[in-house]
């Protein structure tokens, strides 16, 4: 019961979604149910956010002792979480507080993190793009060619750079990506099948 019932639930919900996908027109009930189940998935997952909050409170609550010299970080985390929840649910998403927290704290923090990427790309270019062997050299040359082809300065040096960059993006890049997609699709079916048939049930606690 503790094993079989969850396996049945997983298998059934998966089967309905698959039937709805392949027989969109032939089995309208399956199609409609697969849409319904997908919507249910969003609702159930929303409850999981409660588990996530509990995890944060558990881990950071434990650090809230004065023995811990960095207690204020955990306090800041829990406080800002509470403030955001208050702003979003009680003050409302049209309130000044929500807008301030979102537009002037969360969004700038995200944008700043996002813009760190170019710095990390810079240090990785120096550290890792080294012509160690044939493969690494191909990677390096393709990268430099596209870098030159995608900026006005490359165009200024030679009009062949943009052409070369386009070719790399349209031929080897497309071929490589297609192979990855096809292989990953087969891998996805294998993973999904093992889960739906209950062969892989580590999520149920144990083999």
């Amino acid at each position, binding site marked *: 019961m503790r094993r079989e019932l*969850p396996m049945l*639930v*997983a298998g*059934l919900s*998966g089967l309905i*979604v698959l039937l709805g*996908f392949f027989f969109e027109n032939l089995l309208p009930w399956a199609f409609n149910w697969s849409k319904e189940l997908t*919507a*249910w*998935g969003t*609702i*159930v*997952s*929303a*409850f*999981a956010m*409660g*588990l*996530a909050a509990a995890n944060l409170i558990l881990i950071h609550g434990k650090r809230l002792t004065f023995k811990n010299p*960095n207690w204020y*970080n955990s306090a800041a985390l*829990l406080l*800002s979480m509470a403030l955001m*929840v208050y*702003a*979003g649910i009680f003050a409302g*998403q049209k309130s000044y507080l929500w807008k*301030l927290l*979102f*537009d002037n704290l*969360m*969004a700038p*923090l*995200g*944008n*700043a*993190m996002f*813009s760190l*990427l*170019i*710095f990390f790309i810079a240090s990785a270019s120096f550290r890792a793009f080294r012509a160690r062997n044939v*493969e*690494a050299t*191909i990677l390096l040359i*393709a*990268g430099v060619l*596209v*870098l030159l082809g995608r900026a006005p300065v490359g165009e200024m040096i030679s009009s062949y750079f943009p052409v070369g960059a386009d*070719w*790399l993006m349209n031929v080897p*890049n*497309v071929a*490589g990506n*297609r*192979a*990855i997609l*096809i*292989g990953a699709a087969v891998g996805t079916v294998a993973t999904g099948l093992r*889960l*739906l048939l209950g062969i892989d049930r580590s999520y149920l606690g144990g083999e």
Partner: protein
Amino acid sequence: MSWEFATWLAAIATLAIYSFLYSPNKIFTFFEHVYVGVGAGYGIVFGYNAIVRQGWEPMLKGKWILIIPMILGLLLFTRFIKSISWVSRLPLAFLVGLGAALSMKAIESDFLVQIRATMIPWSSLNNILLVLGTVTALTYFFFTFPDSKVVRSGALAGRWFLMAAFGAAFGNAVMGRISLLIGELQFLFKDWIHLIH
């Protein structure tokens, strides 16, 4: 220089993140915790809204079947009660079944469609390279084939195609990443301290 509190808050948050580039420090750590906190709060608000708008409200309006996902959601919390903690596997199993099936849809978009798109005539060098590149790169992903010369050289050629693909994609992405930094610099030096006009 701008004198709005909101602009200052955003600017300080931005600089705190940038300070990481110099070295990981206490200010970065503090703002990272604040960020994780507001991020979690944001997630909770959206979870709450999803439950109310997609579950609770339509349920009260007569769509009583939605009581099933609502109960399933609540069952997640049985994991905190030892004697019935196995019940929390039910909602997880539901989500796992759903996700397994949804991702298997890749058989159409990532398998069928990609195969079909590669069925092109050998009418130009580019077309030939596209077909051979895809097939040899697929050979690289053979895991259980006996180690033969054909498979080995196919896989080697495939690896070269893959590396060219990765190099090109890397170079191509850099441009977009620079735009992001430009956006940040404009915020700091135009909206905040008015250096750029």
